């Protein structure tokens, strides 16, 4: 006879209500775990989208994500000539606040003008722009809709920007038409990625420069040359030794090279480290709070049954029957709460502005943690149950 289940059935409404409350808390804890993993996934999304074996960046830096990196535009030719390199492409990165004009037709029909009379368009849209050379490494990953870029002023944008094909996007006074869409391609900050041609990107970099720097560049006296890129990415032949090529590149004093693994390390250990730690700590606190709450609930459930437990002891029930009653209820409480929290989160996770990664392995791992928490939390109830004297069953 399973006393735990019978007791739960007897007070089913109260049990389910308790589970609903605890389920919300566990759902939040699970969301934090999902967001934590999402931050890591998003951080690696860009490097994985570009599918580079080697990143050639400015010497003495760990660019272009952890530090600024600027190298001459002709570096690509030099890299491409190295034995073992099958393809190389120049890339630029800049996070911009674009403006959306809606469809191409709407943009042509005219947008509003600001007080200074300058034409402005639609709602702001934060995007990380990748400039790349057509038909060379650095372009967008597989498109889920539309086509690749064929000409200047065209753009491939991630679906996360919530723009349809044909939408017009204004950046730094230049207008781009969205011709293709990617899925889940975001920067380490969670901004959707947009790809444009390298030439457009370099023009944008010049336009978005501070006016003083622009004047200096225009006069040709000082400042950055316009033909500069942030990095060159290279793909290697299967037999090529990345370490040897990296060593070869480092001989050019103005260049540095990072393997794909090193770049991923930079992104996860440096760029999103604080966010990771923050989320990890918060998740830990939430799980701790959940544990304390489970312990209190189990304790209250046990104390509610004080007379019943005393009676069980008096009529000769062994301790294991009483321990099993308390522990089974704690584990059922955890299981039902976790299931309800997980179900709720799976329903709403796509509403979150940043990715929430909840694979089966995450769900299983968190379920395991919840199991251990419930087991430990039930010890408080078990201790209370074992301290109940059978004599408490006697008397009024």
């Amino acid at each position, binding site marked *: 006879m399973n006393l735990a289940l019978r007791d739960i059935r007897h007070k089913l409404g109260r049990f389910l209500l308790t589970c609903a409350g605890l389920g919300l808390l566990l759902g939040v804890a699970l969301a934090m775990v999902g967001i934590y993993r999402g931050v890591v996934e998003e951080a690696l999304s860009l490097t994985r989208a570009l599918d580079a074996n080697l990143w050639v960046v400015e010497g003495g830096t760990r660019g272009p994500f952890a530090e600024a990196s600027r190298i001459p535009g002709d570096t690509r030719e030099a890299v491409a000539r190295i034995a073992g390199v099958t393809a190389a492409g120049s890339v630029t990165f800049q996070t911009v606040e674009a403006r959306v004009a809606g469809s191409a037709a709407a943009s042509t029909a005219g947008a509003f003008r600001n007080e200074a009379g300058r034409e402005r368009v639609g709602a702001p849209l934060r995007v990380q722009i990748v400039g790349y050379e057509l038909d060379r490494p650095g372009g967008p990953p597989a498109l889920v809709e539309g086509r690749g870029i064929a000409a200047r002023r065209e753009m491939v944008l991630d679906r996360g920007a919530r723009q349809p094909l044909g939408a017009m996007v204004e950046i730094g006074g230049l207008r781009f038409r969205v011709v293709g869409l990617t899925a889940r391609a975001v920067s380490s900050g969670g901004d959707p990625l947009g790809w444009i041609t390298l030439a457009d990107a370099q023009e944008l970099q010049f336009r978005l420069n501070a006016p003083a720097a622009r004047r200096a560049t225009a006069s040709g006296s000082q400042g950055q040359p316009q033909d500069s890129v942030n990095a060159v990415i290279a793909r290697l032949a299967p037999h090529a030794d990345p370490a040897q090529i990296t060593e070869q590149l480092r001989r050019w004093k103005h260049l540095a090279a990072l393997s794909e693994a090193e770049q991923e390390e930079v992104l996860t250990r440096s760029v999103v480290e604080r966010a990771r730690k923050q989320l990890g700590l918060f998740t830990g606190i939430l799980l701790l709070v959940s544990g304390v709450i489970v312990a209190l609930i189990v304790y209250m459930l046990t104390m509610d049954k004080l007379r019943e437990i005393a009676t069980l002891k008096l*009529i000769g029930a062994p301790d294991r029957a009483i321990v099993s009653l308390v522990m089974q209820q704690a584990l059922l409480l955890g299981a039902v709460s976790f299931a309800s929290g997980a179900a709720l989160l799976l329903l709403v996770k796509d509403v979150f502005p940043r990715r929430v990664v909840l694979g089966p392995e995450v769900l299983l791992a968190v379920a395991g943690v919840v199991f251990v928490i419930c087991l430990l939390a039930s010890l408080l109830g078990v201790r209370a149950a074992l301290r109940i*004297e059978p004599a408490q069953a006697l*008397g009024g």
Partner: protein
Amino acid sequence: MNLVELAGIAKGFGRGEARVQALSDIHLTVAPGEVVGLRGPSGSGKSTLLNVVACILEPDAGVMRLAGETVWEGAWKRRDLRALRREKIGFIFQAHNLLPFLNATDNVALAITLSGVGLSEARQRAAALLDHLQVGRRASAMPALLSGGEAQRVAIARALANQPRIILADEPTAALDSERARVVMELLRRVAREQQAAILVVTHDEKIFDRFDRMVNLRDGRIESETHPGA
């Protein structure tokens, strides 16, 4: 052979000046088929005596034999006192103490399963017991839906579940009206007679005093007198 034999039982609480002697030099026997009442004012030691016989409280001195087995003599003679209670003692409480989440049958069946009987057989035996105590038609009712008299009959059925030789009852009629109280006492007398069990009842309930074979009067932890109300 007496089923309950207490010889020189003493029990005190606390130490030094704060020590309270709850029981002193108690000599008491209960024979098979005998229904014995324990009465006395508050603090006279009734509950302490019941707890000692129930093997919940350990005496300080004396000898205690239950159903022919020496249970305490200087120390407990058995390690597993719960098993002892399961085998030899049935309990009836003032507030019946049925588990609220089990129906009448399962409240009785639970006690049977604790002695190692399978659930289906335990349920059959429980149903038969409830029928015998004329509460079989309420077998599937939850305790909250039983009347006071019905709940006490189910509690008596639970106490009899493992055919104990000794039944200890703590104010079993306190929550019942006169008529139901007399019915419960008749039931206990019948059980004592049929099963040759020894029944020890703590009571304040004057309306049932005449239903006991013997009434033991306690005062200040000592047996003050014994009367034979039924005689």
